[in-house]
């Protein structure tokens, strides 16, 4: 048998043996056996010295080819075995993915805060500033400069917590109208602001009344601001907070600091406008009050009412939250029951 034939035989035998290996160790043994220093190929190569100088390179290169092909086959087999072992291992590592995950701690913003943030973002986008004023306020700003002189009957509409004769817990965020108008330099541009915050009324807490609640005041003063601008702005607020499918209607109303004054209603959530107990069978739910700033308010804040004018509005995030989420008791907002707070963890 020629060396070449012998090498061919070794190759075929080797490839055949590889097929039956199934373990890493076995494979390793076979590799050492075939390709090792004491292996048959090495042995064959030792016999090369007996070959003629012409034959030597031919057999030599064939021997290398055999060696390479065996190495390749071993590698391929190794890969196969590894893959098989990995599959078995992964199979063993299988877990029940339906078991609950480890609870992660996550807090969330108060539902009223979420509504205030949403309102702030809407108005920031329209070029409004966000301002905040004192919660313990002067009678002058809270009432007098809002066109509510002492003895004005509308003061009875708002039962007030007084600290002294002249200092009180603000009953509304409206004093920020006077405070900002007083300071604003109209030569630098229009005044566009909203002012969210806590307000207080001398009320007995019950499902629909709270001695503490929130308001967001809005004010725009410039040379040409119209009732139509107010209407468009209020519609935008309603659509942003409640959704486009809600209609808005304006009704005449009365606030001492605006004239004309309006209240804005939106389509009843509960019945979609058909009329139900929630909306007192009108199909509408009142959501905010607004109007064109009263000339007296402008004058008292030192603004020339012949040149400047504008609109103001006040809305109640508590009421919005109650309507939007069907919260039936306003006290829920201030008791901070975890089971209540955690219901509003969706960021949307």
């Amino acid at each position, binding site marked *: 048998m020629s060396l070449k034939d012998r090498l061919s035989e070794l190759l075929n035998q080797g490839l055949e043996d590889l097929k039956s290996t199934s373990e890493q160790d076995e494979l390793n043994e076979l590799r050492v056996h075939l390709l090792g220093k004491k292996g048959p190929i090495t042995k064959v190569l030792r016999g090369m010295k007996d070959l003629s100088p012409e034959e030597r390179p031919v057999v030599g290169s064939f021997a290398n080819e055999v060696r390479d092909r065996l190495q390749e086959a071993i590698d391929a087999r190794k890969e196969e075995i590894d893959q098989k072992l990995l599959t078995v291992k992964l199979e063993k590592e299988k877990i029940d993915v339906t*078991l609950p995950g*480890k609870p992660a*701690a*996550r*807090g*969330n913003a*108060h539902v*009223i*805060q979420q509504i205030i943030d949403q309102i702030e973002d809407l108005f*920031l*986008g*329209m070029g*409004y500033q*966000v301002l905040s004023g004192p*919660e*313990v*306020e*002067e009678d002058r700003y809270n009432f007098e400069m809002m066109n509510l002189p002492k003895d004005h*009957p509308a003061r*009875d509409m708002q039962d007030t917590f*007084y*600290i002294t004769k002249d*200092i009180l*817990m603000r009953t509304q965020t409206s004093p920020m109208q006077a405070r900002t108008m007083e300071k604003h330099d109209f030569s630098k*541009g*229009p005044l*566009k602001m909203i002012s969210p915050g806590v307000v207080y009324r001398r009320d*007995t807490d019950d499902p629909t009344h709270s*001695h503490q609640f929130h308001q967001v005041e809005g004010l725009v003063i*410039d*040379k040409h*601001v*119209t*009732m*139509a*601008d107010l*209407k*468009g702005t209020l*519609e935008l607020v309603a659509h942003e907070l409640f959704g486009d499918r809600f209609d808005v*209607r*304006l*009704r*005449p109303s*009365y606030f001492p600091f605006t004239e*004309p*004054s*309006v209240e804005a209603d939106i389509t009843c959530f509960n019945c979609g406008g058909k009329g139900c107990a929630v909306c*007192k*069978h*009108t199909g509408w739910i009142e959501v905010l009050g607004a109007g*064109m700033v*009263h000339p007296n308010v402008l004058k008292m804040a030192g603004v020339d009412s012949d040149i400047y*004018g*504008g609109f103001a509005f006040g809305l109640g995030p508590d009421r919005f939250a109650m309507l939007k989420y069907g919260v039936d008791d306003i006290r829920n907002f*201030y*008791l*901070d029951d*975890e*089971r209540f*707070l955690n219901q509003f963890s969706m960021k949307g």
Partner: protein
Amino acid sequence: MKISYNWLKEYLDIDVPATELAEKIERSSVEVDSVTVPSDGLKKLVVGHIDSMEPHPESDHLNVCQVNVGEEELLQIVCGAPNVAVGQKVIVALPGSRIGGNVKIKRSKMRGIVSNGMICSLEEIGFSKSVVPKEWADGIYVLPNDAKNGDEIYDYLGMNDSLIDLDVTPNRGDMLSVYGTVHDVAAMYNLKENLDHPNLIEGKTAIGDELTVAADKEAAPIYKMRLVNNVKVGPSPLWLQIKLWNAGIRPINNVVDVTNYILMKYGQPMHAFDFGKVSGRKVEARFAKENETLTTLDGETHQLDPQDIVIADEKQPIGLAGVMGGLNSEIEDGTTTVALESAVFNSTIIRKTAQRHNLHTDASQHFERGVNHGGVEEALDAAAQMIHELAQGDVDQGMVIANDEKIADVVVKITLTRINHVLGTELTSTEVTHIFERLNFGVEMNDDEFTVSVPSRRWDIHIEADLIEEVARIYGYDNIPSTLPTGRMTIGTLTPKQRIIRNSRSTMEGLGLSQAISYALLNDEEAKLFSMKASLPTKLDWPMTVDHTTIRMNLISGLLKDIAYNNARKVEDVTLYEQGRVFYRTENQVRPDEEEHIAGAISGSLHSEAWNQHHTETDFYEVKGIVVEYIQSLGLNGEIDFEATTKYSDLHPGRAASISVHGHEVGFMGQVHPQIAKKFKIKPTYVFEINLQALIDMPKSDQQYDIISKYPAISRDIAILVDEEITHQQIVDLIQKRGGAFLNSVKLFDVYSGSHVPSGKRSLAYSLTFLDKEATLTDDTVNKAFEKVEVSLQKEFNVEIR
């Protein structure tokens, strides 16, 4: 105020459905609380005639009546009313009928006798007790004789009317009357109103011979009286009673009812005195004297205040002006001479009197909102005429007048340009003129300018803006376009302070705390707890309850109350933060300073328990981790330090720390003192409170990219046994001081004190990391630095290196 649609129709040719009218009123004028039809929900209530009646054999108060309800057969009904009698026309609830309160009436037996229905009182068919005339209060109601047997009863009692309940805003006092409503509805629908006016027939006696009046000018700018003699007091006719009870007023007699009717029709409060009970001939409207008392018609006796206006005869007060009459001059069955008062009283004084005596009447409510100064006399004449017609009284010639005013239209000028400028509309002068005409205002147009004459019945209109509102509401808010403010550009951004507050909130939430909003008004004790600063409390002058008397000087109390609320409801893991203001005040300050704070409170476990997570109660170090993470997130210059403190007596003395940033104390944290926890009824709770304003005001570090070293860091661990008195901070400070230039970080990785270490000692283990950003560190360099640390620790703190 409940307005009867049927009554409106007497003056207006209008026939839209009541709900449609209500919607129109809402969109154009004032809010409508409800539209109700008294007969709604009632069924099978008919007129019956009691043909005969005999006592129930088994009862001493029941009668068995045979009732003709227009059918061939008589209906046998058992009736227990004391006033039932043969020959009466009564309200019969037939079998299968439905009466008030949604009650169904069935055929039944009463003590063995069949009763085919029920004979009803007014209350039983849904009348409020407060409007049922006294005559019918304790028995069945008797219908007029001409009521037809078998007819439905509703029309006889005015129950098919739609009652539109107006919620009138303070400026629209004119809508508190039928005429006022008629005027406004006429404008809304562009209708012509057909009002009637009094046509008074006076007698021969001149009033001045019998009565003189006087009135304080400030108290009663208009004060007039008429006198009606030979009055025969009795029940009012049914049509008048219906108008009253549908408006929610109880019919009393033909004199009192007239005054109430006039009030509803014209909006002019009117009072009738029994002149026979008046001492002397002079009636005066004046301020009350010290120590005067008056018993009003409701039987209540009032100690009068010198700021109250009274109507007085020559001896004593006989009425609380504009509020309620006195019992001593009440109209009774025997009354023959009636003094009728029609006046305008000072609205502020009346409001205060009504509040002072807690006596809010229809009259006081009208005066508070103002009345039509131009309508005082017409109302007086109309009342006198009605008493003449209904009670056969003879009206004295003329009236006595204490004070009077010249009534003139208010003239307001406005340009078309101004109207369109404010409303954002493009109305034409014809359209605007038409609106003023619909309102029945006088209007003249000159160039661009309208001169508008507003009659006294609209006393709310004085200035341009008032006219603009009239145009807007009659034109319709629905027709005004929707636009957004244009004009010069403005930038809307949050201020740095607002941004920090927002970021603080979201960091807290990311760290697992939920935002709480608690009450800022607390009781005095709660308000003062956990105070970071000496401050006087700011207290309400007149609190509503003892729970909310004082403005908070800390946020933690509110959070502890929240935790108590949760704990009481078996919610034991509570993790809350609050961002809000606290209120500090010094001796000479009335209005407190408002300081933004942020506080947190954790009770129970921060991480909810699960199959793969054990329940672990929160502790000082978990909360400290939150505080540190939070403060770091703000990127302030300087180190955050915690120092043991005992100055907060509401905290556990051994588990309290003050928090400083860059050497400035900004807050504190610790465990709530067990005694305080007990008071609040809460489980062990850890809290922190930080002066957020201080953090906002602190300089922020400019964030710069820190090169990540290419060279490896080398770590060395050290375990030491040290006196318990030596704090971790002291050790870290020393290591950092002695660790050399390449010491990069010191990290505590073990703390042990217990059976394996001597008492009074504890074992601490630190990992020191060395790093040279410029080159590879040699072991030699690190060893030298480490040795220095070891030596210093031994020398300074006498530690044993393990």
